[in-house]
């Protein structure tokens, strides 16, 4: 079997994402996937999984090779909390079961990439902080966090990674350029895999603000 580059996308689907924001995310995701499909390296190695989180965290699509990937329905409840911590807990479990590590008999996957997008703040902050520590032990090649919209808080995300970006608006143009950049970053992850250090991301588009 070809070794995979596992890519996990964690998408906030809490009530505030209902309507245009979520539709824009979908448009962005679709554009990202079709852009990745034009990258021969990604086409042969990237496997994607989507985890959504609102009052509950769900893996709506397990790690699936890019060439077979079909974007599933993404739904959101009317209102309710944002259980980001629960999403990270689910992610930890999934990484343990889905990502293959090397043994003498088996070639491991590439180190996984994690992208997380939220428009609010974790409602389960205690669990979130606990899970951040666990995530740090999971050896992701890169963790990229995106705070979408004015109400999104960047401080909790900064605990997770130093790669935090923000989007001012939640329209489809912004998400499209954000996800395009994500797909470029996945491409880079794909190519600099010999590295034991962190991957160097391409510069983000103007819609994406770098949070220091």
């Amino acid at each position, binding site marked *: 079997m*070809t*070794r995979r580059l596992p890519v996990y996308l964690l998408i906030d689907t809490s009530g505030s994402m209902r309507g245009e924001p979520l539709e824009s995310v979908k448009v962005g995701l*679709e554009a990202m*996937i*079709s852009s990745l*499909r*034009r*990258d*021969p*390296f990604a*086409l*042969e*190695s990237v496997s994607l999984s989507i985890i959504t989180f609102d009052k509950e965290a769900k893996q709506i699509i397990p790690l699936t090779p*890019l*060439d*077979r*990937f*079909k974007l599933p329905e993404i739904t959101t409840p009317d209102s309710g909390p944002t259980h980001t911590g629960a999403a990270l807990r689910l992610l930890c479990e999934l990484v343990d079961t889905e990502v293959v*590590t*090397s*043994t*003498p*008999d*088996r*070639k*491991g*996957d*590439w*180190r996984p990439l994690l992208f997380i997008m939220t428009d609010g703040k974790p409602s389960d902050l205690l669990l979130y902080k606990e899970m951040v520590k666990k995530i740090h032990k999971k*050896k992701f090649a890169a963790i990229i966090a995106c705070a979408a919209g004015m109400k999104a808080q960047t401080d909790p995300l900064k605990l997770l990674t130093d790669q935090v970006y923000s989007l001012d608006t939640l329209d489809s143009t912004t998400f499209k350029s954000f996800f395009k950049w994500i797909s470029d970053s996945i491409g880079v992850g*794909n*190519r*600099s*895999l*010999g*590295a*034991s*250090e962190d*991957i*160097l991301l391409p510069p983000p588009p103007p819609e994406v603000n770098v949070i220091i």
Partner: protein
Amino acid sequence: MNRSQRHLSRLANRRGPIHDLERIFDAVTEEAALNPAEREAFCRWALSSLLDNFKTHLMDRRIEIEKQIKAMGINVPNGTVNKDYHASFLLPEGLVSDVRVDGVEDLGLSLTTDGYDEYYLSGRPVKAGDFTLTLSFQTLAGAPRSSLKIPVAFNPDPRSLWRNIPTDPNIPYFKEDSATDYIRVEAGKDEAPRKDMVAASQRGRSHAREGKPRDDHFALDHCYESGWYIMAVADGAGSAKYSRKGSEVACNAAVAHCKSMLTDNPEFEKAIADYAADKEDAGKRTELTRMVIDIIYKGAVKAHEAVKKVAAANEEAKLRDFATTLMFAIAKKYDFGWFIASFWVGDGAICLFDMNSHTVKLLGTPDEGEFSGQTRFLTMPEIFHDKDVVSKRLKMTIVPDFTALFLMTDGVSDPMFETEKNLNDYDKWLHLWNKLNTGFPGDNIPGVDLSDDNEQSKNQLLRWLDFWSAGNHDDRTIAILY
């Protein structure tokens, strides 16, 4: 009987629902004393309200069937351009007819059915992209056609997406995108053929599509006076910006050091002969090991230092920007067999392959991490601080003879062996040897003629390195002593 009476009598004598209806209609309208105009108006009114009802019923029924079909969640898998595609889906039997998928021929597909409820979409996609198929069908006669959108993506053939952009010759530490070498060692006075060395290094497709340079390197040398063969292969880290220079400097420094130590070294020759004469003698072994350390381990240290020096000379770069793996070996033929010594840090493979004895001997263990692509580099100072560095990374051996001594980067060993376990499997090496001979006819890649003194084999080997393996597009370098 007048005409009207005859008509009524005829009607009364006929049987069947229509005639019943006609009789009842006459009776009702007569009883209501409707004149002919009123009768006609009533008729029209009655039929048109029935028709409306019927239309509503048709629509309801159609919507019902459409809902039922929608609930079945028809979903077809993605395909790949120029690869056989086959998808099937079910539609409720007897409820739909005249099923079509619009424009499907333009995509290179056709729709067929088993005649009952199963439909097949098959063919070879001709266009890459995201498409929305419109599946249309007839539910009830007289109802408008129903349709359903089905998304499908056809992936491009990955091979069609690679591009080959030459490396800009103006970048710092420019290196050619490929390299080959052949060292021909002609038969001596005894006229017995002597082993030759061939090597080729090809920039990986992942680099070629972006016009990035080759990071691998190799160096071969032969001391004609003393008969020593020296070979080195290095893989510059993909993430390190000047690793192409690191690998070059490491190979050249290791080979240069070995050559300086081997051109005229009677003490070493004697130590090898003494040890070969009595391999159980611990003293002789220690003596030989001490000398091997002077040549091989020092060679590695010199290579490390040489890279460090180049890094220090570059103000805007650090040592880790030159990160590279390194493997090198020295070999010489004696009356008692071949003496081989080697050093290996990083991934890839260095292996003695012998078809006579059906054996492989991996000269060390590849440095591999938990995940793919993780390894150790010559440029990491901790390599030399490890107290087991000599026992782990240095190998020496005496064998009667061998078919080939291979040195290769992971660009070759990953697709050929996949796992560390396979690297110790004779059959896998035999497979590689056979593949070298046969090439990859399906992909139009000819084999390599590894016969004695065939200098052309270097070009054949370079072409051979273009073999296809999904997900494996790293730089590829292989050096063979055979």
